């Protein structure tokens, strides 16, 4: 939670560490910035914190997140932060819309094996961790 000068909630990030073996990773469940505090890199600061915790505290291989395929603003933002579209998950959002699974490799994945994009889309029930 990022608290503003008047103790306002400026934004928050919610995540977890999960997976097994080389799939041990940090997952961004949600990242939100309040309308009053947009356009000042707050999302990036929050993502940096999550990446640092995934890297230093949990020693993860990568960080991943899901985003609506239609949300081009968010996709471009994550791309700017170094995330690539790893794969597509069809019908992830209540069957209405596909998701992109976006990933960014951390130091532990020196060979960057976790971020080689998959060509084939997968279905939500085939996800490893949910």
């Amino acid at each position: 939670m990022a608290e503003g000068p008047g103790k306002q909630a400026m934004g928050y990030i919610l995540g977890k560490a999960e997976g097994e073996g080389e799939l041990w990773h940090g997952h961004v469940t949600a990242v939100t910035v309040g309308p009053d505090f947009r356009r000042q890199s707050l999302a990036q600061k929050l993502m940096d914190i999550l990446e640092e915790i995934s890297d230093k505290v949990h020693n993860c291989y990568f960080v991943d997140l899901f985003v609506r395929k239609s949300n081009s603003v968010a996709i471009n933002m994550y791309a700017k932060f170094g995330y690539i579209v790893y794969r597509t998950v069809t019908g992830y959002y209540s069957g209405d819309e596909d998701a992109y699974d976006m990933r960014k490799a951390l130091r532990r994945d020196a060979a960057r094996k976790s971020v080689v994009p998959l060509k084939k889309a997968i279905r939500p029930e085939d996800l490893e961790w949910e």
Partner: protein
Amino acid sequence: MSRQLKDIESYERKVRPIYDALDSRNWKGALKLCQQALQKYPEDQLIKVLKAIGLDRSGKREEANQVVDEVTATTPMDEQVLRLAAMVLRGSGRLAAITSMYEAAAAAAALQGPGQAELAQVLLNDVFGAHVRESNFVKQQQVAMKLSKASGLAVGAAGVSSERYSWWMVLSLLLQARAALRARASGRPAPPGQVPAVALEPEKMLALAEGMMSRQASKDKKLEGYDAFMVYVDVLLAQGKIAEALALVTGPLGESCIRLPAERLQLRAVLAALSGDLQAGAEALAEGLRLNPDDWGALLLLLDCLLPGTVQMQMAATSTGTMQVFTPQHPLILISGGLAEQLPPRGAPLPAGKWLAGRAATGGSGNGGATADAFQRAEGLLKELQALCVQTSTSPASGPGQGGDGKPMIMRGPDLALVELALRRHRGAAATASAGSDTEAAVVDAVLDYFHKYGDLVSCAVDLRTYVAALGPGASERLAAGLAEAADVAAGAAAAGDKREALKALRRQVCAAQLRDELGLPRLEGCGPEAALQAAQQFTTLYATARPLQEDLDSRERGAADELPALAAAALVSAAGAAPSDVEAVPYMLAAYGTLADALRDRPYGAAMRIAAAELAALLAAPAAAAAHVYKLDVKHVQMDTLASHLLLPPLLTWPSSAPPPPAGPAAQNPGEAAPAASTSGSGGPSPLLAKALSDTRALFEDHGRDAGETLFTAYSHGMYTKVLEFTAFRERLADAHTFSLVRAEGAIADCLLRGAAAPGSGGAGAAATSDAALSADAIRAAALAAVKSVKATDVPSKDSLRFNWDLTTRPTWSPPCAAGPSLQPLQWWSSRPACARAQGYGRRWWSAPSSAEAAVPEAEAWRAAQAAAAAHRWLLPHCIAGALGATGPEVLELRETVGRLQALLDAPSTSVPASSPGSAPVTLCDERALRRLDVQLYQAALAVQEELSQAAGTTNGSDDAGPEVSAPSSGPALSEAVGAIHRAAAAATSRLSTEAAAAEAWGGLLPGGNLAQLAHLLREPMTILAACLQTWQATSRALQKKRGKAAGGQDARLHKLAADVAAAAEELGAAARSCGDALSSLKATAAGRAASANEALLGYLQERGAGPFGDGARAALAALAREQELTLAALAQAATAVAKLAL
């Protein structure tokens, strides 16, 4: 293939498709498959519980529970069977049944000897989870101890290590300590199972927990991880052992458990400050800030440490009197949901030397406790950090200020801290009474500096709000002039620059406008409507310039000037506040509504605009429009408590409406622009909107109460111990929520009145109410008898038992939180309109700060006391209604006691903030206290009549010896007084309404909401209840007269008199209701008879006076508002007719 294997395969073939059907939500198919499978395996537990799941999901909850009970009676031990059975039981809120199911299973497994030891351990693990669900901290601890002993060193069968089990014990103990502390603070006993049967001092429990943790730490030379470490620190803090906590953090355990150096550094700094070593705290903070200069919390704490005398002080009561203590607020400490907060000593006494030296130097009156040197040091440090931000944000290497795309990151912390520093210096100077104009001028300069740098950020005005609010009139003028100048420069630049630059310049202008409004400039109050109209005009003109710049902006994104329409509307409402009468206020409010509606066409998700529009619709008797605006905000989950409750409940509880709930979220295209269709059901019919709001809100609390156990158990299982404490505190907070009390009370009242009771979950009397339910005394009595079950007499809410979660900051400046409960909120606004409708200087309102509802300021305390009293009154009403109608039952409070309690609530010293300002228009409307007094009067009269009737019944039953010495006093005067008071209140409102209607013709007839709200309340509650009572009493006295006539062969004069009194009261009430009904019907007919051109007349009227121009959005919204007000009039007229019918 062996026979056995074949059997397994055949079984699998039966079961697999059931799972598939359930997965694809095909409940019917699943049930059919279960039925088939049960024919082959009639006793199979798994198939049975799968069937139960199918039944539960298809809404057959009772049948599902029956099946589960059948299965659990056979003591199943299969984990999957138990898990599925638990799902059904949890859905029905049968948490205790889950616990006994797992206890039985674990005991059965344990009896099977070592062969089943692993299963027994797994099941015992689930028993622990079951106690967690039930918040039984004592049993939790006992089970954790068993688990810990049984699991040995390795990871146990349930995947949990022995070490973790011992942490479960520690946490169970801590939660008991916390429950004991809460019980001690509130004076109410802890809920069962939360504290040990043999009382143990909470301090002792904390010491025990600490002992367990320290043994673990010294034995293994390590702790399980971050969460374990933080709980250890917290327990030390709770016991005031700050030095020990600091040693722990700086020692090897701190290093191994807190892996992020920056976090360790911060914790060290906070603990050093807490222990009173401010210098060490400041040094550590500065070290951390050099790595991350944009940490606002750390910056504030740094200033606190460097300038201890400028800390906003908290006084702590100690045994030796009050002491000034410094309690740094930081997310890294006090994590336990109120554990550490409840134990003195909290915080550190301010270092006497420094503090006193500062005071002595300035003659003892205090200069903020800091010397000029200290200020200079602080300023130097902030400037160093400021420079660091600039440097790192422009250097090519990646640093703290470097964005991922190479653009500099915005780091406004140190810049804003300089404004903070200027204000602290000014406060210090003001405290010494040494002329503060220089220091105040420095604040103005600092604010302007910040504005020059960040004026194009949306957050700029929010960032500066508290500083701007602290300025006096002269400084405000200077700042406003400075801002105006800067905005003019920006406007010039906007004309010249490209689109991007133009947007930035526009942002500056908007920010300047917001800040001027915060300053209360240009002054609108006392300046007549022209000033307000002009101000509104300026806001809308500037808003119009934004449109071409953001044509491709997504409708959900924040627009560059979205604040302006709300400011324009606010300015117009302040003109409404200054209007000499309620009716003359209406056109300004309509102009405000139209302005918002036009802007909402472009920016449909502008929250401030939606909220303002909803509040206006609520005040103008248009509940469906108000609800539509609120639902467009896509309010859900916890927002049902923080937001929806104070925006949605007031209009829906005040105004009758038969409109269906609007579609939520994006589906609603232009909410508030379509009027609901005319009501087809009677006035006694349900209100779907109200029913939905009440049941959705209840669902939040009830679902969370049911499901929180799962999240908590997960936190235990994963070793997230701080989350266990946090989630527990959250669960308790929601269970105690003020809103939860309100919706239970209002649900019960709605049930009694057969309104809004048809929706499932709105209360116990759902069955009694259908849309056709006739309003009759019998129906109301039966409904009340059922409704009291959800408002138990033992749980009457009080100020100390409630948590106030409303996000008051979302309220428009002109709609302050009022003392009345939600059912009388619009009425209260109208009755103190001039005081409420002041639209400027939001930052100076007590409720503009986050979490203000629970703030420790006198206004907040008064507000909470008033809300609690109102909630308690509402909670008791269903008991009154049941009692007055002669319903008796184990759950119904005796009428005498209830009336006494209502009276006591009223007698409690009024702490409500006086709302009306001197020189305001004469208050003619009833306020909340007057209406509550009316209730007391009504139920006192009911009590008197009942007593007289029962005495008459006694004598009629042949015991004439009862004699006149115990004779109840005649109820006649009380009754006629109550009827008279109600009659007068209704007649006064009706007559004022007619006068208002005549005046309102000038703008097409739309009426103010005050008198309407008063009538709505009277008709909905006291008049309906009184009519029902009178009906009952007439029937009773007739029966008695008949009986007596037969028994004694003559008439009893007393009984005769009573019957006559009741009949006269019924006559008077009936006449009052009829006259209300006639007036309302005629108003409705006039409204309906108005040509469609009425809307044009309204727009013309407004524009003539300088409001507008208005577009299609305003046209549609205002027309819909007028139509909905007409529906409200019709519904009220119907209600009046129904009361008259009931009375006579």
